[in-house]
């Protein structure tokens, strides 16, 4: 009898699915993503990029009852940085280098898989990474390593259009999950280690036609062009490889911009090098820049500002304020007024010695270290692209920091050659004895033989009112994991060691942990299907999905 009811109800459900309008992910739905917490509709869970879910089935009392529901194994080895999107029981997740899978979010079984074959000239600095898709209407969008943007039919995985975003021969690439707003899909380009000239570009979701394109390095005659000399601007990097945010009231999108090039020889590119290492505010309809804020002028350390702009409307020290919170790779935590770009507070959250502090406009007062001396934070930064979270309940901003980690840089003159690495030097990680193993960009070894003496992880909870750390959760190895918070004050994250951690978001107390065995280099997501709340997290080459025991 029970079975029959189930069959009937699923038939009703199936009928509902046939009506195409029900399947549409409209702009309005994404804008109001908080009203459907059972879905995870954008890379960062919503346009404000808070990675905060209103789901409350899993809480601090029952978190110990989490059990594994399913595993999806990747067929391709390498860091799996993808962030799933979940729409009405279907999960969309990318596999490196550029495949998209539609997965049953309850069982982990795959409906369809689309494989993009990259141009063999595709070049990226740091692995064949892809961080996920965007959805809009009945389409799924993915950027590719060979700098294309692909639109797929969300129901059957068929390719609908493909457009060239950048010149693969000049080492342009797209590794970020696109951002879909209104009728457009917006992406930025990677290639900051190859002498590109970065930009953000918007495409009409329906046709793939380009709507606008805004360079992150101003050309001749444009404001800011005088922060470059001679032809430096043509190869000056400033890539955009992490998904931005959107504020509907301002009609602005916000994007973190990466390092200037050549990376380590700033003497070769005198000037502030705008808009490298900045956040830029672009009108979503025209791409016109409304304001910018530069974190690290004339950067010689590869301190990309490719962090997720986390937006919130808070009582900032008693005044209602539209803020943007930003833990930067350069070791400082900033709170900006996102209507103007004014810096409200900026303070170091790890040891910083490349600058002695920030002035009243939050411009760093630089203190370059002598040749051969270590610079704090090191090349991978105090943090990096790992998506943070903001909980409106606790009022705290959470992110993964690297402590006690330093790099010794060297620089050299380098001539630009099209499509070739354009680095202008190199670096070594400070280790306690000569030749000792050190932290790498990712973790491929189950043995930690470098030890925490070379650096270790610290999950930090920051108060945006003061810019100060409220509590921290230390890890033995460093972490590239993103954050997820929930309405039950859970903070869900991972780490390079392969642990899945659930903490109390109010005080950092560890509530639950499980060894999943492989590095966690994405941010967990949560969703609900048929009344069951799930948490998905990718560790190593597998996507694990948990829920409470029945």
């Amino acid at each position: 009898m029970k079975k029959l009811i189930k069959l009937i109800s699923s038939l009703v459900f199936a009928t509902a699915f046939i009506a195409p309008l029900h399947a549409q992910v409209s702009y309005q739905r994404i804008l109001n993503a908080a009203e459907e917490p059972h879905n995870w509709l954008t890379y960062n869970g919503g346009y404000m990029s808070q990675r905060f879910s209103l789901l409350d089935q899993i809480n601090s009392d029952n978190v110990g009852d989490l059990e594994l529901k399913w595993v999806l194994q990747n067929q391709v080895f390498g860091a799996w940085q993808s962030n799933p999107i979940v729409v009405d029981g279907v999960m969309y997740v990318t596999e490196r280098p550029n495949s998209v899978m539609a997965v049953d979010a309850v069982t982990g079984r795959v409906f369809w898989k689309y494989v993009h074959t990259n141009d063999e000239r595709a070049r990226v600095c740091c692995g064949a990474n892809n961080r996920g898709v965007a959805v809009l209407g009945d389409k799924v969008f993915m950027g590719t390593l060979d700098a294309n943007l692909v639109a797929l039919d969300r129901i059957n995985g068929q390719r609908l259009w493909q457009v060239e975003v950048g010149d693969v021969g000049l080492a342009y690439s797209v590794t970020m999950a696109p951002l879909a707003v209104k009728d457009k899909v917006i992406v930025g380009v990677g290639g900051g280690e190859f002498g590109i000239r970065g930009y953000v570009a918007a495409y009409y979701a329906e046709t793939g036609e380009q709507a606008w394109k805004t360079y992150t390095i101003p050309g001749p005659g444009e404001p800011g062009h005088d922060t470059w000399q001679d032809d430096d601007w043509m190869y000056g990097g400033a890539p955009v490889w992490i998904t931005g945010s959107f504020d509907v009231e301002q009609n602005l999108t916000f994007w973190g911009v990466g390092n200037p090039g050549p990376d380590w020889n700033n003497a070769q590119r005198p000037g502030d090098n705008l808009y490298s290492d900045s956040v830029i505010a672009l009108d979503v309809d025209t791409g016109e820049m409304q304001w910018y804020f530069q974190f690290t002028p004339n950067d010689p350390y590869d301190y990309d500002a490719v962090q997720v702009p986390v937006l919130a409307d808070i009582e900032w020290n008693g005044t209602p304020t539209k803020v943007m919170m930003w833990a930067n790779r350069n070791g400082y935590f900033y709170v900006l007024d996102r209507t103007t770009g004014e810096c409200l507070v900026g303070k170091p959250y790890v040891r910083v010695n490349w600058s002695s502090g920030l002035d009243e406009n939050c411009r760093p007062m630089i203190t370059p270290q002598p040749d051969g001396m270590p610079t704090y934070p090191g090349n991978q930064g105090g943090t990096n692209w790992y998506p943070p979270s903001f909980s409106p309940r606790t009022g705290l901003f959470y992110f993964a920091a690297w402590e006690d980690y330093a790099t010794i840089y060297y620089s050299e003159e380098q001539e630009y050659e099209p499509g070739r690495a354009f680095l202008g030097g190199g670096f070594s990680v400070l280790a306690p004895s000569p030749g000792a193993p050190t932290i790498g960009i990712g973790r491929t070894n189950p043995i930690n033989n470098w030890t925490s003496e070379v650096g270790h992880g610290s999950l930090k909870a920051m108060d945006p009112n003061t810019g100060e750390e409220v509590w921290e959760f230390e890890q033995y190895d460093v972490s590239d994991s993103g954050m997820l918070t929930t309405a039950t004050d859970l903070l869900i994250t991972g780490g390079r060691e392969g642990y899945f951690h659930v903490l109390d978001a109010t005080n950092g107390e560890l509530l639950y942990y499980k060894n999943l065995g492989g590095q966690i280099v994405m941010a967990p997501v949560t969703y609900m299907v048929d009344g069951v709340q799930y948490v998905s997290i990718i560790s190593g080459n597998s996507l694990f999905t948990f829920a409470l025991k029945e």
Partner: protein
Amino acid sequence: MKHPKHSCRVWNDRPGTVLFAFLILFTNGTMLAQELGDHQYTSESIQAGLRVYSRECALCHGPAGDLVSGINLARGEFRTASSDDDLRSVITEGRAQGQMPAFALREEELSGVIAYIRAGLDPDGVAVRIGDPVRGKALFEGRGECADCHRVNGVGPRTAPDLSEIGVMRSPVSLQLNLIDPGAAILPINRPVRIVTRNEETITGRRLNEDTYTVQLIDSEERLRSLQKSDLVTYEISDQPSKQPTSLSSDEVADVIGYLLTLRGAP
């Protein structure tokens, strides 16, 4: 569940800055030369060797020392020679039916070119003297007390790292530093640990792996142990290796290095 305090808290109290200072010191070849005295060739000798090499050797061996098959001078790969005296006789006597001719060099030219080769063909490099491997083996197993803790080719205890492949893993400079200043050379993972568990068991040993919640080690009884940090009452990581700097003479150190460089794993 309480968050286990990881070992960082233990060694945070140690003078870590001293270790960092060492690294800075060793990035500067000149300072290193002064520091290590007669254990190695001087930078003047290496510079002189560069001139001799460019004049006499580079024509056949190439500027990078890799043009003769089976030989890579920069990486210390030779057909037969191992010690500095071997190189000396190859250069002064010639080899391979005259394909490598005999060179009549003055003593300072000869020691200069050997120094330059030992410095990896890097005029700013550091050259370490490499002695007789047979004498070095005897010292390793006898008066040098190395074999008291280290295992080689299946013989000896496992408590310290196995050295059967150390000749391919370490450079002569690194081996020398390990012998004369082990405190500066020890890899962090090899620092001795002392642990007391909640069951009042005291464990000493050497770590193999560690993470936020657990530590894996080989204890003094050669047992593989995996411990939960939340079960530990004491967890100390020494900043000093169990071995003091060697009391061997500089000639003997050169011999031990010569021996260690022959350890290249099971055939």
